[in-house]
């Protein structure tokens, strides 16, 4: 009997640690880049080997292309993206005063299209939308992430954090179970990583394409056998916002390359 009690007591701290996630200390935060092999890092390091730069190239052309009923291009209002968009992606998702909600970069581009260009919004993960977000995010390379510092965003960051800690799906896993508690371990052959969204939109070798942070989040939810939120759902934006605020101060890498 005494040994049984001892075993139960010994198991308590383990049980407690799996239930309440321990957040990653500031000094131990690592970009997904540092988990990659030198070969994959080399693809990201060289702009003529990084396939994400193909979307940046396309985005550059789209930036200058006139569209919509007003026949305006992005450049007609924002001029040179390399100046006007510098550091912008590092602040997204940002608070939108008109709707009273945070909007991510994809939604901001589409808001601009519908209100200022009077054009149809672009579909999530379409080549055009990814190209535009890629060219915008590329202007923030090296800029420290500064999302979520707006006090109006506080309740949304909190909602995103709650979602990150929430167990969901058939496997009954929370994001935090892997990315806060076990980021130094592996899931089969793959590094788990800390879920620091420093390089979105990014080129994933598995996708053979550029993809948004929402695509990544939805893939994770499918992996834990949960019902993924729809693209553009407020829950996904809140999660994006929490992850970006969690990575505050880390340098942007867009368009990054990941395995």
């Amino acid at each position, binding site marked *: 009997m005494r040994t049984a009690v001892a075993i139960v007591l010994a198991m308590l701290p383990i049980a407690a640690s799996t239930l309440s996630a321990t957040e990653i200390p500031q000094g131990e935060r690592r970009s997904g880049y540092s988990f990659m092999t030198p070969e994959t890092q080399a693809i990201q390091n060289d702009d*003529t080997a990084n*396939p994400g730069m*193909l979307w940046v*190239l396309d985005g550059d052309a789209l930036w200058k292309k006139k569209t919509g009923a007003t026949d305006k291009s992005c450049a007609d209002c924002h001029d040179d993206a390399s100046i006007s968009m510098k550091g912008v992606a590092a602040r997204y998702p940002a608070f939108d005063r008109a709707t009273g909600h945070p909007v991510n970069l994809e939604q901001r581009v589409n808001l601009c299209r519908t209100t200022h260009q009077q054009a149809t919004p672009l579909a999530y993960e379409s080549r055009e939308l990814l*190209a535009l977000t890629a060219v915008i995010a590329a202007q923030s390379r090296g800029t420290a992430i500064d999302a979520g510092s707006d006090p109006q965003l506080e309740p949304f960051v909190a909602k995103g954090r709650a979602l990150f800690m929430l167990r969901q799906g058939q496997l009954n896993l929370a994001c935090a179970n892997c990315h806060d508690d076990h980021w130094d371990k592996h899931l089969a052959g793959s590094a788990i990583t800390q879920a620091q969204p420093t390089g979105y939109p990014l080129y994933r070798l598995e996708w*053979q*394409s550029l993809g948004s942070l929402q695509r990544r989040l939805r893939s994770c939810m499918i992996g834990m056998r949960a019902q993924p939120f729809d693209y553009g759902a407020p829950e996904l934006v809140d999660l994006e916002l929490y992850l970006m605020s969690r990575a505050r101060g880390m340098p942007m890498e867009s368009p990054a390359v990941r395995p």
Partner: protein
Amino acid sequence: MAAALINVPKHARRGEVIEIKTLMSHIMETGYRHTAEGAVVPRDIITSFVCRYNGAEVFRAELFPAIAANPFISFFTTATESGKLEFEWIGDNGFSETASASIAVE
């Protein structure tokens, strides 16, 4: 939208071995995949790549369905004279793209 990224050194010494890197935007659909309804997704790949140095062919590659999307091709050649390097990608469904880069050889 097709875009290419080319990396050719701007300057080289005569006789120097230079590395050329090319990246072409392409989906490289294998033709072996099926949709959820069971229909075959038709093959759509780049089938050949050629590099000409002042008109003379210095590198050629044949591409096949097992090659990943956005093929990255890197190769070496000897810098013989100043001039132009021309690149050509040809593929299914009439895909044809060209790009060029100039090099100064001293």
